[in-house]
């Protein structure tokens, strides 16, 4: 295994830190998630490292707890999106014919509506709870995964070893999960990083619009929303979660780039 390049290493470390603080939130957060401990919008001090928020809760604790929610929702939605999208995409590529046509045209139709607009339309009638959010975001995003996995799988489906498996009399499920999936995995894994970032931005945007994670739950988008009125008085509290979102997005991006680079060069693949 080669040495990890510096940008990827930075990305890995920062992503790791975010994951650690999300998992260990109850241990490292100085205060509870909705514990009012100080005055409104206190500046940073030794008791409140990042100051307090719009009703006097410790901002650092809110950020740590909020990170937990954001990362949890984004990861779960990514999983939903990947499981649905890649299985449907692999089946469409292997079965072909009218199944493929039907699925592909349906995906075209869903992608003709901007994702955010579609999510808003659906959330106007659904109860806005975390499971609903995860499913709505995951299903809407699975259209992108479907396109990628279908494209990758239709390249693989014409390979000799797939034909060999079919001639051996293996079933369709075997061909899909044992022959095609393992070979399609590396582009899919790199894509997972990008989808995860998109999910973080998506859930943050929804929460910022007041249609994502509902109070008293905290997530990064929601913290921006709660503290946005402070901006006009020169209080930068709303910028902090935004910085966290950007830092996470950039570091995951760096890691995904490296994974893509490594897997494609390992296979001597098409991307050189």
């Amino acid at each position, binding site marked *: 295994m080669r040495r990890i390049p510096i940008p990827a290493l930075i990305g890995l470390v920062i992503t790791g830190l975010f994951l650690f603080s999300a998992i260990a939130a109850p241990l490292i957060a100085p205060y509870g998630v909705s514990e009012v401990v100080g005055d409104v919008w206190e500046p940073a001090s030794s008791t409140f490292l990042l100051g307090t928020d719009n009703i006097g809760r410790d901002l650092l604790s809110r950020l740590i707890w909020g990170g937990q929610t954001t990362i949890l929702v984004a990861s779960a939605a990514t999983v939903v999106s990947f499981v649905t999208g890649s299985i449907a995409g692999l089946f469409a590529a292997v079965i072909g014919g009218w199944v493929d046509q039907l699925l592909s045209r349906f995906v075209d*139709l*869903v992608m*003709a*509506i*901007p*994702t*955010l*607009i*579609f999510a*808003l*339309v*659906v*959330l*106007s*009638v*659904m*109860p806005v709870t975390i499971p609903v959010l995860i499913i709505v975001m995951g299903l809407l995003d699975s259209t992108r995964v479907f396109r990628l996995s279908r494209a990758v799988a239709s390249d693989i489906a014409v390979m000799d070893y797939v034909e060999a498996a079919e001639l051996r009399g293996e079933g369709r499920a075997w061909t899909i999960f044992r022959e095609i999936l393992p070979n399609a995995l590396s582009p899919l894994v790199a894509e997972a990083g990008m989808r995860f*970032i998109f999910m973080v*931005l998506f859930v*943050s*945007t929804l929460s*910022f*619009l*007041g*249609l994502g994670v509902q109070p008293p739950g905290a997530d990064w*988008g929601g913290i*921006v929303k709660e503290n*946005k009125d402070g*901006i*006009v*008085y*020169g209080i*930068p509290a*709303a*910028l902090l979660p*935004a*910085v966290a*979102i*950007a830092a996470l*997005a*950039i570091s995951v*991006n760096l890691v995904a780039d490296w994974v893509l680079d490594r897997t494609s060069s390992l296979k001597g693949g098409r991307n050189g």
Partner: protein
Amino acid sequence: MNAYIAKLVAQRIALGLLLIFLVSIMIFLGTQILPGDVAQAILGQTATPESLANLREELGLNASATERYFSWLTGILHGDLGTSLSNGRDIASAISERLGNTLFLASWAALISVPLAIILGLVSVLYRGRWPDKVISAATLSAISVPEFMMSYILMYYVAVQLGWAPSVAMLNDRMSLLEKLHAISLPIAVLVMVVLAHMMRMTRAALLNVMQSAYIETAELKGIRRSAVIWRHAFPNSIAPIVNVVMLNMAYLVVGVVVVEVVFVYPGMGQYLVDHVSKRDVPVVQACGLIFAAVYIFLNMVADIVSILANPRLRHPK
């Protein structure tokens, strides 16, 4: 041969219209047949059976879904978008002014970002691999990783609050002159420009670099033409099709980005109207806005495809 192009364009327009029709079905289904009852969603879990029955009657929920869909669709085709549940006002009249405001904001953002993206793309190809290219690439890459609302608040915090150069809230009224209006929306425009600029510029650069590998570019270089002239006279005209395509796709993206930016800057446009009514669970308004946003998006995508059909010389002059 022109009949061939006309046929392709007509097909694409027909496809666009079909898509809009299908999308109207999707949006209708999305709000009507999902688990959970619209009346229940509006009134909440504590509603009495009588009030639920009344609201269902008022919304016409007792008719079949197909009937309701077609009465909704014929209404839209006649310019009647229905009435809002939350304040009982006519949706079409509420939307018309807001749609104008949104288009005003989006078109100014487009007017600024498109030429800027193309110029930056040309510059970075001209100085490929040297510092102007690297600076432009790094700046655009970081702009992509930042959500719109974050960019909005950073600008609001530094430009509006600390420096006081622009208002932090984009209010418009009829007495303002064009310049005053532009000053009022300068920050939202700046955010939208940054959001689409990065992508457009990168694609412009990629399209130009792709053309720069052609044999005729090498010929032009061997003739001894200056590099800037090679790019401007020989490469650029041949990459107009992909560039226009990217521009239209980004205009489509702009329509969506506008939603968040309008909410941040309290701008009286369609996006803010939509978001407000989603939280009020005002289904007729959400359907109408959703359909308009989707239709604009599909329309811009259609224009992108048509432009690339028209700009393709192989289609214009078939053998």
